[in-house]
Each structure stands twice: as C-alpha cells, then as structure tokens.
C-alpha cells in the first residue's frame, strides 16, 4: 500500500506539466483566479479546451473510440491534480462531462458523429435544461412538454438556473413526452439548438454579482425527433446517469487544495496584515486542510478500487456532500482572512477586465464573490438534503 505514483506515471505527470507550461497563458491564469464561479467564461474556458483538443486531451473521461485519450484512472487523477495546481480554466463541463457521456452511452451513430467532435473542438457550447420553476429537488415533476408533430417535437415550457444559457448554442434537456402514472416514465432526453425560433433567455443575477444562470423559455419550439437521445420515456435514466458524473467526477480534492492555498497565501501576505498570525485562523486552516486530506484519501481509495476493476460503490453522493461543504468552508475562511476588505463591493464583471483599477488589492477581489457564489454548491446538482436522502437509500439501504 503506498501513495506514490509509478515511474511511468511520473513521466506522464511531467508531460502534463510541460503541456500546461507551454499552453496556459498568464492571461488565462489570471482570468481563472479572478473568476468567482466554478464556470469560466467561454472566451477563457474554450481557449483552453482548444489547446487540450489539439493535444488529444479534450475529453479525459471519454473512451478512446469517442476521442478520449485512453487514460488510466491514475492518469486522470494526475491530469486533474496538475491542472488544479496550475490554475487552468474550467472547460465547458456541460459538454465534456455531462452530455458527452450520455451521447456516448445512449446516442445514435449519427448523433455521436455530429456532436462529439464539436464538443471536443469547442465548437459547441452546451447548457443543461433540467430544473424548472416548479421542479427543483423534485426534478421528476418537470412540466416542460414536448408534443410529437410529424418528425418534430414541439416544446413549450421553461427551464431555470440554466448556467451559461446566454453563452450556449446547444442545450440538453429533460422534457415531458408522456403523462404516465409514474412521472419518471414520461420524460425524454432532447438536444436543442439554442438558435431555434421560440427560445428566449432571461438573465438571473445571483448574490455574488455574477450573471451565470438564466431562465429559458420555450414557445412552440420545434426540435427534430432525431434529436432525442435514446428511447422516448427513458430520459430519466439517462439524466440520472449524467448526474452521477455531475456529483462525483471523483477528483475534487486537488482543486480544493489549490483554493485553500490561495486563501493561505492571502493570509500570509501583507495585504491581509498577516491574518495567519491569528491562531484561530491558523487552526481553522488546519481543520480544512485535514478535511481535504481526508477527501483526497477517499478519492484515492476509489481510484485504487477502479484500477483493479472493483466497483467503488455508491460514493458519488457522499463525495458531492463533502466536496460542496469543504468548498464553502474554504470560501468562508477567505472572507475571515481578508478582514475589512470584505466590505468592498465590485459590481463590474468580469473581474479580470475592469475599466478602472479596483480599490483593494486585485487578489482579494474575488474572495467575497466566491463565498456568496459558493452558497449554491450545496444546492445545485441535487441539494445536500437530497444527497442525504440518496445516501440513506442507496448506501444504507433505508
């Protein structure tokens, strides 16, 4: 039993480092550091996606026949860890990590041939149409309806909390195609061109000051039946498959460690008057660091199981719970560390392209927005309360 990587894996690690050193521009790095959200704006995120794609690393989790790099679980781990350490932008996760695996798993050959290369290259930018105003945690109660009319579905209804709908040219959505007794059975998984007539998008500003999410309205929107993934009425199954990916991509500790390091660097800097000298802050930092060590060990236990072909079990809900809570703890500590600068409000976005120099040190700018933005971590992708229900049901057999 050991925590060290093999010589071959070390060589791969060096290859990743070299790639990052050659392709991560200072602009990308700065923009990522100054983005309060986990979602990079497309101009930053897609530039990185293009660089990854050129290297053949556009979709680390995909099988090789779909354009994935055919990495072992350990290689994926190393890649994610190095990216986190270097502060690379986030790519369009809704494409690469969400709809991609569903199309690979359940799509037709035509769908695979059309959509997958466009996700890899960054030509398509995806958003996720799941939640509705009346359907949050109770997702299966969704009411957006797709009615068959010849070779089309006609879609009416509305989706909400749609991250980056204002940037996306495509949406994957769960829509109701049938009124079945068990509401999960009447749902289908549809791919929608965001330029279709009848779609309007309304921005929703969140408390951190970011425009990240939207409400999207569908008014007699026609979508070809060929845009349905898999069988009609089986959308719930595909949607849940995808949520497994959303909840536990399995490698979050490296990002959290990087986020904590950012807070620790601030605490050790003149900008915060050496907040670290406050023993309460130092101890709080240790508590969070140990929580991240714990999470990392859990991830490595899962990785070890995967590498020998064992099923790690229903851990994604457990991981999602802890990852979101630790993220929030890191951002909360950040607010404590910056002291009086926590009162400063910067209404302009993006923070990496302000017209005027801010009134506080630049590296402190994203701290409060990150904390405010981060309140959503325990809500999106199934709230923590829903995750606890899932743990009780799936893990404890209750």
């Amino acid at each position, binding site marked *: *039993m*050991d*925590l*060290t*990587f*093999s010589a071959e*894996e070390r060589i791969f690690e060096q290859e990743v480092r070299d790639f990052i050193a050659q392709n991560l521009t200072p602009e990308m790095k700065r923009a990522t550091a100054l983005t309060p959200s986990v979602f990079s704006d497309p101009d930053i995120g897609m530039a990185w996606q293009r660089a990854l794609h050129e290297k053949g690393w556009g979709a680390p989790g995909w099988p090789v026949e779909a354009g994935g790099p055919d990495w072992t679980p*350990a290689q994926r*781990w190393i890649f994610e860890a190095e990216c986190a350490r270097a502060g690379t932008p986030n790519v369009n996760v809704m494409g690469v990590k969400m709809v991609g695996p569903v199309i690979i798993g359940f799509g037709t050959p035509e769908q695979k041939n059309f959509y997958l290369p466009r996700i890899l290259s960054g030509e398509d930018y995806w958003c996720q149409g799941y939640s509705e105003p009346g359907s949050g945690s109770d997702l299966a109660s969704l009411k957006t309806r797709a009615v068959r009319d010849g070779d089309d579905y006609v879609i009416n209804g509305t989706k909400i909390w749609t991250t980056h709908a204002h940037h996306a040219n495509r949406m994957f959505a769960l829509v109701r195609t049938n009124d079945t007794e068990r509401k999960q059975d009447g749902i289908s998984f549809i791919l929608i061109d965001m330029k279709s007539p009848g779609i309007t998008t309304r921005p929703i500003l969140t408390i951190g000051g970011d425009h990240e999410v939207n409400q999207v309205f569908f008014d007699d929107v026609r979508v070809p039946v060929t845009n349905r993934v898999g069988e009609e009425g089986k959308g719930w199954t595909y949607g849940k498959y995808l949520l497994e990916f959303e909840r536990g991509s399995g490698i979050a500790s490296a990002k959290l460690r990087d986020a904590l390091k950012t807070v620790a660097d601030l605490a050790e800097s003149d900008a915060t008057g050496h907040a*670290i*000298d406050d*023993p309460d802050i*130092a*101890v709080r*930092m*240790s*508590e969070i*660091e*140990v*929580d991240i*060590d*714990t*999470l990392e*060990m*859990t991830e*490595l*236990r899962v*990785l*070890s*199981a995967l*590498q*020998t072909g*064992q099923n790690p079990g229903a851990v994604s809900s*457990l991981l999602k*719970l*802890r990852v979101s809570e630790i993220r929030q703890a890191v951002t909360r500590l950040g607010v404590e560390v910056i002291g009086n600068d926590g009162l400063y409000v910067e209404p302009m976005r993006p923070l990496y392209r302000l017209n005027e120099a801010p009134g506080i040190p630049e590296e402190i700018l994203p701290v409060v927005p990150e904390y405010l933005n981060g309140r959503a971590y325990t809500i999106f992708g199934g709230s923590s*309360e829903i*995750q*606890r*229900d899932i*743990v*009780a049901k799936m*893990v*404890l057999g*209750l």
Partner: protein
Amino acid sequence: MDLNLSDEQRLLRESVDRFIAETYHADHRRKSAGDPLGFSPAIWKQFSELGWLALPIAEEYGGLGAGPVETGIVMEAFGRGLVSEPYLSTVVIGAGLIAECGSEAQKQAMLPKVADGSLRLSFAHSERAARFDLSHVETTATPTPDGWIIDGCKTAVLDAHAADQIIVSARLPGGDGAAGDLCLYLVPAGSVGLTMRDYPRLGGGRACNLELTGVRLEPDALIDNGSDALPQIEAVVDRALAALGAEAVGIMQIMFDMTLEYTKVRQQFGKPLSANQVIRHRLADMAMHCDEARSIALRAAVMADAEPVARGRAASGAKAKIGKSARFVAEQSVQLHGAMGVTEELDIGSYFKRLLAFDTLFGGSAHHYRRHAALGGRTPPHA
C-alpha cells in the same frame, strides 16, 4: 499508488476479524470487567501464537517486519471487540521505543521477548503539568557512580500494572530542556521506590499513576547512549496515534452498524424509526463520518514512516479529525438508541466510553489541530 489491501493484508484481516468475533462477545467483556488484571493472559498468549505480537517488530529481532498498515488492520478489529489486552502499550509503543532508541544489546534482549509474548512493556511519560505536551517532563534522572536515581510522578500510564518493564522518561536534574537532556530508562516492575496506583480505565483496560521516589537503576537501564529521545518519542507516539485512529474506526463502524440496525427494528408511531427523514439524514451523516475516519486513519498509517513534519501532521490531523467524527458518531449512536442508549444493558455505552477515552489519549482534537498548524509553520507550537 495503490490503497488496496495486499493478499497478506487481507488474510491478516480475515484472521483477526474471525478471532475477535469468536472471542470478544459481550459475555467475555462482562466477565473480564471485574478482573484485577483487566485482560486475559491466556488471550495474550494466543495473540503471540497468531503472530500479532511479532507483527511490527523487525525480522532480525524475531518479528514479522510488518508496518503501520498491518498494525491498523489489527487495531481496527480490536476496536470492534473492545480488546483490553495491552497491545498498544507493549507492541506499538513499548517495542516501538526500544526499536527506535534502544542499543543493539537492548533490542536483542527485549524485542524477541515482546514478539513471543514473554515480555510486556509500558511507557510512563505523561505528567500532570504537561497535559499533552510531549516535551514537558519534570521527572529527573540523577547520575550516580553506580547508575541513576529517578524521581518524579507519571499519570495515566497505560497498562503499567501488567508490565515487566516500564519505560520512564526523565531529564537530567537542572537541565534546561536542551537536546540530549531527555532520556528513557527501563524501570523493572517492583523496583524499590516505585509506587503504582492502578485504576480501571474508561472504556476498558487499566491505567496507573506512578510515583518514583529515589528509584535506583543500574547504568544499563538507560535506553541507548543518552542522545535526546524526544524525536523518537514523537515518532512512536505518531505511530500510536495512527494505531488508535484505526481502533476508533473499528468502534465507530460497529456503533454505526448497531444503530442503523436498531433504527430499522425499533417501531414508534407505527413505523420504524428509520422511516423518518430526520433520522435518515442523521444516519447519512454518521456514515459519512465513519468513512472519513477510515480514510484519514489510513492516511496516518501510510504516512507513519514519512519525514517528521509530514508524519506528525498526518498523525495529528487524523487524531483531530477522527476525534471530531468519533464524538459525532458516538453521541448520535446513544441518542438514536433513546433511553436504552444510556444504560449498561447495551454495548453501545461501552463503545461510547472507549471512544471518549480515545479522544482523551495523547490529546484531543483542539490540541492536535494546533499541533497540525504549528508543524505547518503557521502558529507557534503552544499558541
């Protein structure tokens, strides 16, 4: 990178699990509770026959040369069984100190005897004024022409009543705490001037308070050559923390399993307790704490032979985190058992007390988070 158990480790786990399940049932505990020794010499002999006493001892001294992960496997099962045999004091700490600090002759003389079960050890280090500061020792060792004279008081010495030799830490009189000052001495049981007052320990086993008044020792009672023993003490205590963490994981898991089962069976308002969301969420949190404790305990074990800062941070981090998680799981296990949870009629209470003792041993969560921070260069050591 591989955290899967090897075949040997799996076999060890199966064997110790089986032994614990067959031997340490509630009846056994009730019978041994009033025993003045606090454990069974017959079972200790079985431990030696099964090779568990030899486990972490190097092969050249009659051991099996296994590491902290194997110790963790044994300790986790011991936790489930609430084992009170002096494994931690003799094998993990006692033999660990001899291996770290002892002269070649001392290792040759003692380690094979630990491995074969014929020598039991205890470590007398803690003092009332020190709390959990390992460097704070007021007990003195005064050199004389024919050896040493030890004077001082030690508290909460695990299993000293059953030890053949007690390893006592002491400083040269008038020393200023400089390196080379703190040494370890072998004090045979029954030495003149050694007063021992032993008491039943919370959660099982026994512990002692020692008074050493003019205890005369031979020159060879000094362990090794007089170099400062604090770094070695810290290394061995860090390994003990990893072992205790594994023991706590075993206790947490069985408390959780029992509680989960109870909430499925216990009916109130015409349905099982576990049908209530407030209970289900509590259980989900308990499951998470158990799994987290398992991860961080394993980390402490895997890091137990790393360089001192990384090792110390891993050990203290684990002790602190498991302490917090154990408190949650233990308190909620009692809570969800309702009034039955606070009686002596269920095992839950025994496990609860053992976890409380775990939290106290070598310092609680607050102490170890501070040490973690200090070792990380973030705060002065005793802020």
